[in-house]
């Protein structure tokens, strides 16, 4: 066992209202620069839908992630090493700018310079790359709230494997359904961007698991962009360097939550330490499809286990980090309560950001296999509880997103969440919890104490409970690298080389 720590973010999809505040906070902080205008390190997609960049889940097209051959060996989907070098001059799997969108602004001066006329003047949209006038034809959230519609949903690869009848029903206007999926870099345990970088410019930080691009070492071979199955490495066309989500490590090092999580209006995001076994990664990566998810969950270690604590200390993880891991909301949701799953584990990158799948809208009831939209009484909770396969958002769809197609995993989670809802509703509305609800709790594999804990962490957590950030002791790390007295009176240490375009 070799214990390492991972800063892990958790997304409670039931609470996401799709407001894009996270995206804007991230944009303002990190990507409001030339060459980065089109990048959204954090984006929010409407699901079912094609996402950003368009169709990023189509790995036959983009060749992201890893694949396992018949003999159980695992290969990078885009290339082996010699092929990687041979394709330095041209990468056949690179997404094009139009797969993202042509970043635009408006010529606001037109509003002042226009000649007098009958109509109000308008600001002409212009490309932020060429400065030429343009028609705006796409954007990072172009299909916002249209996800459920046939136009965008039909092209969602995660709908493959969903029963054709169910798909047909989903396209009926009464059944159109969508939910939101916020995405950042998953800071994987087996990142394919790292493996694909010919220069070795990308690495995973041992102390907190953040995956970073060393900008000085990046040579614009751009294999990382294709190799990341989540399309979360971006190529800055101006500086000629790849960039990606840095999990706001400068904020975390100073005790602040990442900007996307901090600004989250729905308070859907949680942040905490997960301890994992680095020796188990090999096993996770090579596990067959049906054992993949479990293998990854097993690689996450119990921070209360004395053996794990001893090993963690031996690996140089301090008491304060172990303490954080024990209080981590990520640990609670992912392992203790078993409610959260990684996005697309079948990419075999062992993604370390976790999602609590959404309970599909429960404002509908099922009657003779048809969905009625009128609001029902509490009894309908039970109806859904026992017939989750008839939920408006098909289990198969969620299973394709989060559990390699295993919808039993999703069902278990949704039942537990529904049980929490039923229990708290009986308790607060009717003042007592009846036997049927207690039976439902038992069927969902939970008990009142756990229900109260889940309820509290879901609905009433304080900032400190949502973001359990360990102390980084960067000041001590810096002291070991640089003599603080030598830099006395100076502003920071090191030198600044402006990120200007090379010739």
């Amino acid at each position, binding site marked *: 066992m070799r214990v390492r720590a991972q800063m892990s973010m958790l997304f409670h999809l039931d609470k996401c209202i799709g407001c894009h505040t996270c995206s804007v906070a991230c944009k303002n902080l990190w990507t409001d620069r030339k060459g980065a205008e089109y990048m959204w390190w954090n984006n929010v997609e409407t699901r079912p839908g094609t996402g950003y960049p368009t169709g990023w889940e189509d790995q036959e097209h983009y060749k992201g992630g890893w694949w396992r051959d018949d003999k159980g060996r695992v290969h990078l989907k885009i290339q082996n090493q010699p092929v990687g070098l041979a394709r330095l001059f041209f990468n056949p799997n690179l997404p*094009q700018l139009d797969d993202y969108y042509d970043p635009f602004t408006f010529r606001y001066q037109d509003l002042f310079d226009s000649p007098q006329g009958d109509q109000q003047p308008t600001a002409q949209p212009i490309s932020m790359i*060429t400065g030429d006038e343009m028609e705006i034809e796409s954007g990072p959230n172009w299909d916002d709230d249209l996800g459920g519609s046939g136009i965008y949903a039909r092209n969602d690869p995660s709908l493959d494997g969903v029963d054709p009848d169910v798909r047909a029903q989903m396209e009926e206007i009464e059944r159109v359904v969508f939910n939101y999926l916020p995405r950042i870099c998953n800071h994987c345990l087996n990142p394919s961007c*790292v493996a694909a970088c010919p220069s070795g410019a990308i690495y995973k930080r041992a102390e907190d698991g953040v995956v970073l691009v060393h900008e000085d070492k990046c*040579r*614009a071979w751009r294999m990382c962009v294709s190799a990341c199955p989540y399309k979360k490495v971006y190529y800055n066309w101006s*500086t000629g360097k790849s960039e990606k989500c840095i999990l706001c490590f400068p904020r975390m090092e100073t005790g602040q939550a990442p900007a996307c999580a901090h600004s989250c209006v729905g308070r859907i995001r949680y942040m905490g330490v997960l301890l994992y076994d680095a*020796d188990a990664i090999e096993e996770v990566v090579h596990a067959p499809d049906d054992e993949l998810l479990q293998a990854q969950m097993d690689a996450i270690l119990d921070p209360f286990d004395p053996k794990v604590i001893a090993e963690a200390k031996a690996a140089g993880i301090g008491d304060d980090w172990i303490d954080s891991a024990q209080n981590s909301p990520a640990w609670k949701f992912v392992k203790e309560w078993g409610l959260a799953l990684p996005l697309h584990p079948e990419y075999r990158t062992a993604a370390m950001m976790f999602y609590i799948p959404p309970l599909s809208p429960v404002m509908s009831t099922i009657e003779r296999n048809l969905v009625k939209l009128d609001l029902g009484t509490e009894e309908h909770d039970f109806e859904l509880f026992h017939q989750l396969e008839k939920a408006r958002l098909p289990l198969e769809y969620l299973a394709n997103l989060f559990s390699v197609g295993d919808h039993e995993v999703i069902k278990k989670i949704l039942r537990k969440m529904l049980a929490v809802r039923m229990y708290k509703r009986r308790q607060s509305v009717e003042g007592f919890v009846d036997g049927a609800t207690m039976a439902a709790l038992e069927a969902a594999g939970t008990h009142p104490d756990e229900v109260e804990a889940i309820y509290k962490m879901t609905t009433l957590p304080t900032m400190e409970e949502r973001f359990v950030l360990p102390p980084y002791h960067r000041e001590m790390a810096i002291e070991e*690298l640089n003599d603080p007295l030598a830099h006395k009176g100076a502003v920071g240490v090191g030198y600044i080389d402006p990120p200007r375009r090379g*010739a």
Partner: protein
Amino acid sequence: MSGNEMLFVVFPYAAFALLVVVSIARWRLHQFTVSSMSSQLLESRRLFWGSIPFHWGLTLILVGHLAALIVPRSFELWNAVPLQLLLLEITGMALGLWALFGIVVLISRRIQVPRVRSVTTTMDAVVLGVILAQIVTGLLIAIGYRWGSFWGTAVFVPYVRSLLSFSPRPELVAALPVVLKLHVLSFFVFVAIFPFSRLVHIITLPLNYLTRPWQKVVRNAPEPYVYQPSADEFLTRR
């Protein structure tokens, strides 16, 4: 000092000195600027037709030139058989035309595609111009002064070797036709602009990708070092 000495002794040494000194300085002080500056994100289809012939054509031709410089005797022996000489000349000519096709596509792409034009710097134009001059003069020599791979070992190799051994003999190239001189001079210009342009990406060819483990985990403290004991090297090829 004669003009010939200026061009074929002072200039090449100055160019190589620039290459070494400025490349090292840029690497150490401004490594952020060292990049191949790919524009594939902005335009891909024409890059395919330009970049692949351009890079592979030039690389193979460069290998041929280096081989002539390093093992001229083997070259002469190979060329002693007329059929083999013909084969070599045809191959060289084909590669040159292939590279010419590539650079023409690349230049037209730079001019015609608005997105690519907007990221084009003056140095990009200079680089393309110099390389175009080299390809064109090379092809003109191949056509006008036939069997270059045959006489080249006798004419150019002693000159280049004289430079490399720091006992320059510019008289060896003094009487050559203008096209041949231009071909040599444009190479020295290439060397001189190398450290100031995107050409530096040539020395960053990431050969160690062939041997490094897939994953890379780095610990920040106490000092940044690549942390990879055996178990970290998972997914090394089996």
